[in-house]
């Protein structure tokens, strides 16, 4: 679907690593070039025409993000450098002040490093406790296990909407309902889901949300932090300097601007924001529901074909996602990836930044295929053929 929008697909690559980053359509590239060729000014700075164009496109993007995730106000949208930056702002800009010693944070073993390490560091800094919600047999979070993990010290639950290893989707709406009934705040890492599944921060009652532009067909270096207005308003900025101050005097008096500007100190990543603007339009033109249906269908086809190969170990067959995790029996994941690369098939080998998952996954490293709408049945067929010939793997990679 929409393959013609991706110049890079002319190179003959089969790109199955969409969980790492997605390819960029021509409209995103064009938006960035247009910024540099036609109105390459700073945002919120100048009283001249090209600066106003940048200003309005910059704020238009905020409005588009607001609509994409169903936020109430565009002031609840902060541009960051990516999910990691957003998560660190959430943890160190908000929760460092909000949480007290012995307060508990609930995460799981299948979270991305960006949703684990900041909490670990906060644990060391102020003495909070990081606790894990048990995963069920399919590595999923059940409501039962979530409820079981809650104690009277639990103050926040921080989960990926869709995980980057297994690809399971969490029941965010039900989780946030239970969480809020227990005075627990809800943080959602939407890095893996934003380009594949609709999320609605109001309907799902999410307190903080983080995602990246580059995993939704946009540029690298741009991301989003959403926070409910009253919570975001309490967030301490990480960056002080230009753009975020209202005034300051020589005796040290500093007055900061309103949110979200207060949280976007320094010249922002304007080309990133404008590229994200184009990416959102691109996704919305196709439709997230259409994307989701297509990817699920393709994933089922891939699972079905892989299941026929007795030398393939499949790890997440029963999970409803766009991710497939497998190994060729007896072959190290990286060797499989290098073998597939000989046929221009790009896959990820490793632990996928979820380094603590191996304690329940029983395998340290896997090959991961993460699908996008531009992947096709023909590409899956080619992959299966290459895998069928993998008895020659050593001859091909050594």
């Amino acid at each position, binding site marked *: 679907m929409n393959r013609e929008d991706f110049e890079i697909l002319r190179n003959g690559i089969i790109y199955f690593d969409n969980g790492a980053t997605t390819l960029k359509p021509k409209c995103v590239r064009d938006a960035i070039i247009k910024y540099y060729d036609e109105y390459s000014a700073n945002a919120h700075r100048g009283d001249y025409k090209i600066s106003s164009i940048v200003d309005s496109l910059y704020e238009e993007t905020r409005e588009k993000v607001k609509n994409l995730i169903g936020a109430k106000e565009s002031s609840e949208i902060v541009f960051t450098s990516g999910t990691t930056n957003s998560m660190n702002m959430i943890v160190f800009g908000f929760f460092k002040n909000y949480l007290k010693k012995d307060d508990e944070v609930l995460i799981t073993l299948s979270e991305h490093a960006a949703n684990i390490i900041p909490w670990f560091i906060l644990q060391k800094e102020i003495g909070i406790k990081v606790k894990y919600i048990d995963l069920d047999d399919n590595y999923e979070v059940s409501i039962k296990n979530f409820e079981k993990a809650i104690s009277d010290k639990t103050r926040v639950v921080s989960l990926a909407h869709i995980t980057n290893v297994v690809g399971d989707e969490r029941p965010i709406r039900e989780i946030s309902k239970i969480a809020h009934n227990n005075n627990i705040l809800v943080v959602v890492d939407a890095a893996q889901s934003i380009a594949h599944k609709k999320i609605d921060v109001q309907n799902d009652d999410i307190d903080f949300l983080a995602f990246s532009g580059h995993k939704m067909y946009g540029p690298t270096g741009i991301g989003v932090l959403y926070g409910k207005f009253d919570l975001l308003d309490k967030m301490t900025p990480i960056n002080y300097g230009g753009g975020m101050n209202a005034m300051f005097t020589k005796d040290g008096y500093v007055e900061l601007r309103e949110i979200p500007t207060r949280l976007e100190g320094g010249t922002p990543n304007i080309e990133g924001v404008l590229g994200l603007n184009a990416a959102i339009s691109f996704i919305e033109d196709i439709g997230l529901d259409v994307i989701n249906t297509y990817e699920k269908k393709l994933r089922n086809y891939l699972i079905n074909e892989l299941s026929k190969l007795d030398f393939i170990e499949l790890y997440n067959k029963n999970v409803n996602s766009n991710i497939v995790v497998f190994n060729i029996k007896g072959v*190290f*994941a*990286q*060797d499989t990836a*290098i073998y597939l*690369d000989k046929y221009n098939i790009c896959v990820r*080998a*490793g*632990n996928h930044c979820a380094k603590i998952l191996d304690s329940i996954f029983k395998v*340290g*490293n896997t090959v991961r295929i993460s699908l996008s709408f531009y992947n096709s049945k023909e590409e899956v067929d080619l992959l299966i053929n290459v895998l069928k010939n993998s008895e020659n793997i*050593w*001859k091909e*990679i*050594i």
Partner: protein
Amino acid sequence: MDKDIKRSIILDNYQNPNKKKTSGDDYIKINTRNVSCIDNLDIYLKVKNGIVEDATFEGEACVISISSTNILINLIVGKNKNEAINIIDNYLKMINEEDYDKDLLKELNVFDDTGRQPSRIKCATLSACGIRDFLSKDNH
């Protein structure tokens, strides 16, 4: 060396590595986790009076990493530290496609074209660098 012979030596050291096992407390354990790929090996070294008396390794890694570790370990056991470091330095030169002493490297010569695959350089040098670091600082 013929490509098929090279491949069979590499594969043999990958599939039947005689030095792949953990060792006891009288060995020094070095972890050579590679940040740019996913190889993760522990090397066990026993160095006494300046001689590498024995070495083994354990862990999960790709064919190039395991095979090169096994061959290298077999080559340096019994050598004194300077000899072992010299072998490693020549091996690293080979991987980096610089001039090196071919005779010194024995079976390690099977990796003489590994340097041409950028994604494999880390795999091929992971253990060598870890062992070299240890030997150059060690006072045993």
